[in-house]
């Protein structure tokens, strides 16, 4: 079993906050396929299309038959530890500060031999299951877990360095007015968050989610309006140094594309909230969070954007809204570059139509707030960068990966009509 993580003590005001350090980032281009898989929590290795040999480390030609046709393929993660060590000193600051660090050599049942991180509960020469995770440099690393769940295993210090687990962390939900806010807050608290701040815009306007939010313990409502730079800056001053996980659920949504609307009014509102809102939050909260990514148990760890899956490919019925989310998605990529040096992770949580007023005319399936909250928690616990909630989002992503241009044509059909 793993020693359970204790809630962190109050911060010593005389102690300097540790500067973020990172494990090595440099990787080959071929390797990045593994990082892309880790971003989605998948364990995949290159597999030779000709001789079916799984390859590791990632490479450009098959080590068995010289074929250059290697495909990233989900792979059975079971294996056996052949050798292990505990690294007690390192020339790399990140590991020096976290030593001792357990690593090992695992013979995968599927073939390759893999040097990997080893969870503290793995037995010597024992059977293990590898998981593929992003480390603090944003690159994939493989970690051996005991083949059977052990007690408090998520609290293993090495594993925790690779996840964004909400346990003992403080979260900010930017918009309490959204239908999903109570479910997100509840899920964060159930996952062990010590407090959930919830932003409240336009306190002069009542909203139905306020009452359920107030019923929860460890919730603090704060004035925050993502369309107002001053409001965002002011709240950064208040809680910027205590925000470990930021959940940007602010959303402005109306139906229609450019022609259906005939003006840019709602589109501006969509950009103000969905795009500029994200930018304002990032400019205000980003630096504070980036400075605190090595701040112990409740270090700043993740930035979550809840995005429409139609950020990937436009849904004409919500054409302008989709465009604003495409902008937000693109900005999230820019933020990843901004935050990567500090090891702050940006997780995009993609959803299809959600169960709310604006999607009332849209046929099911629709994503319920509780399902969205589950996906968010799972994504944080697995340290993901990309996660897709619900069947519509998963289906659309699969089509997107298959062929983005074909998907676009599917999405923009006019219908034969009469």
């Amino acid at each position, binding site marked *: 079993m793993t020693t359970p993580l204790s809630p962190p003590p109050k911060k010593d005001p005389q102690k300097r906050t540790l500067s973020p350090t990172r494990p090595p980032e440099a*990787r*080959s281009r071929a390797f990045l396929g593994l990082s892309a898989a880790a971003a989605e929590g998948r364990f995949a290795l290159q597999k030779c299309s000709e001789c079916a040999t799984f390859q590791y*480390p990632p490479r450009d030609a098959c080590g068995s038959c010289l074929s250059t046709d290697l495909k990233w393929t989900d792979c059975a993660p079971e294996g056996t530890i052949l050798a292990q060590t505990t690294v007690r000193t390192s*020339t790399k600051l990140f590991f020096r500060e976290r030593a001792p660090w357990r690593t090992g050599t695992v013979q995968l049942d599927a073939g390759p031999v893999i040097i990997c991180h080893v969870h503290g509960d793995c037995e010597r020469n024992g059977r293990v299951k590898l998981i593929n995770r992003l480390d603090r440099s944003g690159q994939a690393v493989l970690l051996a877990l005991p083949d059977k769940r052990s007690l408090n295993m998520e609290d293993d210090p090495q594993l925790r360095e690779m996840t964004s687990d909400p346990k003992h962390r403080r979260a900010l939900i930017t918009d309490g007015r959204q239908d999903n806010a109570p479910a997100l807050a509840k899920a964060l608290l159930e996952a062990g968050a010590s407090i959930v701040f919830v932003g409240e815009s336009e306190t002069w306007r009542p909203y139905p989610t306020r009452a359920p939010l107030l019923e929860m313990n460890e919730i603090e409502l704060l004035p925050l309006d993502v369309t107002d730079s001053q409001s965002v800056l002011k709240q950064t001053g208040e809680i910027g140094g205590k925000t470990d996980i930021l959940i940007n659920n602010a959303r402005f949504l109306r139906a229609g594309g450019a022609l259906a609307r005939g003006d840019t009014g709602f589109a501006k509102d969509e950009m103000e909230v969905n795009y500029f809102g994200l930018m304002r939050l990032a400019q205000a909260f980003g630096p504070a969070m980036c400075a605190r990514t090595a701040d112990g148990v409740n270090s700043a760890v993740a930035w979550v954007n809840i995005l429409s899956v139609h950020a990937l490919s436009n849904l004409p019925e919500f054409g302008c809204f989709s465009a604003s989310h495409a902008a937000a998605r693109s900005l999230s990529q820019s933020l990843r570059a901004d935050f990567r040096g500090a090891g702050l992770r940006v997780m995009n949580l993609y959803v299809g139509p959600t169960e709310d007023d604006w999607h009332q005319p849209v046929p099911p399936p629709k994503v319920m707030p509780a399902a969205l909250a589950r996906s968010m928690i799972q994504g944080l616990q697995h340290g993901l960068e990309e996660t897709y909630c619900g069947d519509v989002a998963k289906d659309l992503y699969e089509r997107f990966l298959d062929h983005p241009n074909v998907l676009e044509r599917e999405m923009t059909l006019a219908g034969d009509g009469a």
Partner: protein
Amino acid sequence: MRRRASYDGIAIVAPHSTPYQRYSIETAHWWIAKALRGSLNSAGLTPRDIDGFTVSSFTLFPDTAVGLTQHLGLCPSWLDHIPMGGASGVVALRRAARAVQAGDANIVACVAGDTNHIDSFRMMLSSFSRFASDASYPYGYGGPNANFALLTDRYMQEYGATREDFGRICVAQRENALKNPRAVMKKPLSLSQYLEARPIADPIALFDCVMPCAGSECFLVMHQEEAERRGLPFVTLAGAIERHNAHPQDPIQLRGGWTMDIDELWNMAKSSPDAMDLVQTYDDYPVISAMQIEDLGFCAKGEAASFLRDKDMTITGDFPHNTSGGQLSAGQAGAAGGFIGLVEAIRQLLGSAGGTQVKGATQALVSGFGMINYDRGVCSSAAVLKAITI
């Protein structure tokens, strides 16, 4: 099966070791020039007299052997850059011998050298190999310490070797080093000090690890007739092998490439392990020395520990091993670590080893091992040298 040709007629002359330094403000170019000049001076040659040149170095970037020709004022008709780390000494020798035999060059200088700046070891690790940066350094960044810890862990489990067994190798080498004025380590080492040392990456502790430092090594290869004409004392090359990426199917490295070529080596050298007066293994970690002793035929696989338990590995012992103190006690000067045993063996057979001289040494085995590309050393090499009295 075709047998490879002998190395008859080859003379190895003018061994030179530039005294190592823990840290140096100089560059690899400076260290290489020092060693080259040392060998040339002892042979009474000038840079214009050599027409073959090989270099091994990790810290020469962005230069290679090519840049050094202009930098050092050389005009070779045969040039090689040998990036094989711990295997590069024997490989350089073997290839230079072939160049001389074929007439591609008359006099080849084989040199290795590296500098060691305050942060250069970490910088070198970070760009060592593609597989290492992708798949080994992100895991604790222990560098070779972590890699060899894993190999050592498996070796100990597989063959029942103990830390005491490895300790004896290190302690004997330290005793040898105390007689070598160029050695970086100057203090005696006891077995209990070895066992109680600070752990680095279990089961590797402080004295299992080499001390990275700056230094350089050089020797010259020419035809025996050339050496005789110039009145230069020389040793001969009785046999030499190299092998890369052997046994890829082994899940973890318990043996090296020597196993594939060892019979050929001994046949070619017309000799045998028990005829060796001294053995210079590549010793970045003691487990690798143990593996070489097995794979080169001194004992059966997995029995190095018990074999060595009955042996005295010091200069005056019955199994003189790494007589200069090896990398473990004389220091690891980057790629010069692939030359240190070879240059020392040349001195031994020339009878010019000074304080570390093994009395009456006429035959030596030198082996090299290098380049942990990912999870194992990829390059291996070995050579048998003989004094001309034979």
